[in-house]
C-alpha cells in the first residue's frame, strides 16, 4: 500500500509522462503499421494497376488475332488441277479451333476485368488474386494450345513435308499464309501477356 502510494506520489508525473509516452509510442506503432500496410498495399496496388492495363492490352490482341484469322481467305484467279482455287480459315479444323478458342479467351479477359478492379481497390485481399491466378493459368493453357496448333499448321503450309507428300500451299496462297501467320504471332504475344499476369498475381499473393 505504502509502496503503491509512493509510486503514485513519486511517479504521478512519471506515470503521466509514461502514459503520454505510451500513447506516443502507441501512435508511433499505429503510424508505422499504417505506413507498412500502405507500403505493402502500395506496391501491390501498383502491380494491380499494371495487371489491369495488361488485361486491356491482352483483350485488344486476342480480339485482333481471332478476327484476323476469321477473315483470312484468298481466291486464286486461275484454276489448277490439284488444288482448290479458294482457301479460307474453315478449310482447316485447327484454324476453326483457333478462332473459337481465342474468342473464348477474349471473353474471359473481359469478364476478369471486375476482379482486377477489385484487386486495385483492395490490394491486400487474397481471394480475388487467387481466383485470378488459377483462372489465368487455365486460360494460358487454352491460348497456348490454340496458338501452337495453328502454328504447326502454318509451318506445314509454309514448308510442306516431303516424307508424307504434303505440299506447301503457301506457294499458291501467299496472302492467306501471311494473314494466318499474323494471327498466330498475335496469339503468341497474348501468351506472353498471360505469363506476365500470372507472375504479377503470384508476387502480389506474398504475405509479409
Amino acid at each position, binding site marked *: 500500500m505504502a509502496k503503491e502510494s509512493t509510486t503514485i506520489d513519486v511517479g504521478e508525473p512519471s506515470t503521466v509522462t509514461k502514459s503520454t509516452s505510451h500513447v506516443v509510442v502507441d501512435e508511433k506503432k499505429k503510424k508505422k503499421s499504417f505506413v507498412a500496410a500502405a507500403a505493402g498495399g502500395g506496391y501491390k496496388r501498383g502491380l494491380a494497376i499494371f495487371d489491369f492495363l495488361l488485361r486491356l492490352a491482352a483483350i485488344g490482341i486476342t480480339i485482333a488475332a481471332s478476327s484476323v484469322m476469321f477473315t483470312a481467305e484468298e481466291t486464286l484467279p486461275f484454276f489448277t488441277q*490439284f*488444288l*482448290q482455287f479458294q*482457301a479460307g480459315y474453315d*478449310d*482447316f*479444323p*485447327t484454324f476453326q479451333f483457333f478462332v473459337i478458342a481465342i474468342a473464348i479467351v477474349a471473353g474471359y479477359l473481359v469478364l476478369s476485368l471486375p476482379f482486377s478492379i477489385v484487386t486495385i481497390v483492395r490490394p491486400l485481399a*487474397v481471394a480475388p*488474386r*487467387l481466383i485470378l*491466378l*488459377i483462372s489465368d*493459368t*487455365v486460360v*494460358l*493453357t487454352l491460348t*497456348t*494450345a*490454340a*496458338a*501452337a*496448333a*495453328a*502454328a*504447326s*499448321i502454318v*509451318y*506445314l*503450309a509454309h514448308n510442306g*513435308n516431303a*516424307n*508424307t*507428300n*504434303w*505440299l506447301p*500451299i503457301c506457294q499458291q496462297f501467299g496472302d492467306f499464309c501471311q494473314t494466318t501467320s499474323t494471327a498466330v504471332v498475335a496469339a503468341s504475344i497474348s*501468351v506472353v501477356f498471360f*505469363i506476365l499476369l*500470372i*507472375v504479377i*498475381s*503470384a*508476387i502480389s*499473393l*506474398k*504475405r509479409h
Partner: protein
Amino acid sequence: MKSGQAEIVETSKGIQKSGLMSRRIAILEFILRIVAFFNTISSAILMATTNETLPFFTQFIRFRAEYNDLPALSFFVVANAVVSGYLILSLALAFVHIVTSKTQNSRIVLIVLDVAMLGLLTAGASSAAAIVYLAHNGNNKTNWFAICQQFNSFCERISGSLIGSFIAVVLLILLILLSAIALSRRH
C-alpha cells in the same frame, strides 16, 4: 495471466495446425511432381521410339515412317524431355518446401518456372496433336493425304503418347494451384 497463457497456447496450436496443413500441401506437391515426371518421360520415350516400315512399296508414299519425319513430333519429344528434366530438378526445391517453413520467395520462383514449363509442354503437346489429327483425317482442300491409312501402328503410337503429355499438363496446372494456395496462406 492464466487466460493469457491459455490464449498463447491456443494460438501456438493454431500455428502448428496450419503448419501441418502447409506441410501436407508440400508433400502433395512432391508426389504430383513425381507423377508428372513419369508421364512426360514416358511420352517422350514412346514418341521417340516410334517407327514403322511397310512391307510393300507404293509409288507416292515412302514405305518407312519415323517420328522425326514430322518436325512437330520432334519438337514434342524435345519439349517433353526438357520438362521432365525440369521436374526432376525441381524435386529438390519441393523437398526443401516440405522441410522448411519460410518458403515464400522460393515458392514464387517455383510458380514462375512452372508457368514457363506449362507453356512449353502445352505448345509441344498441342502442335503434335494438330499434326496427329491431320495424319488421321487428312485435308481435302489442300490435298494432304491421311497417312494413317497406310501406317496404322505408327499412328496408334503417336496418338497414345499424346495422352501422357496432356495428363502432365493437368498435373502442372494443379501444381501451380497448390503453390499459389500455399503462398497465400498465413504461415
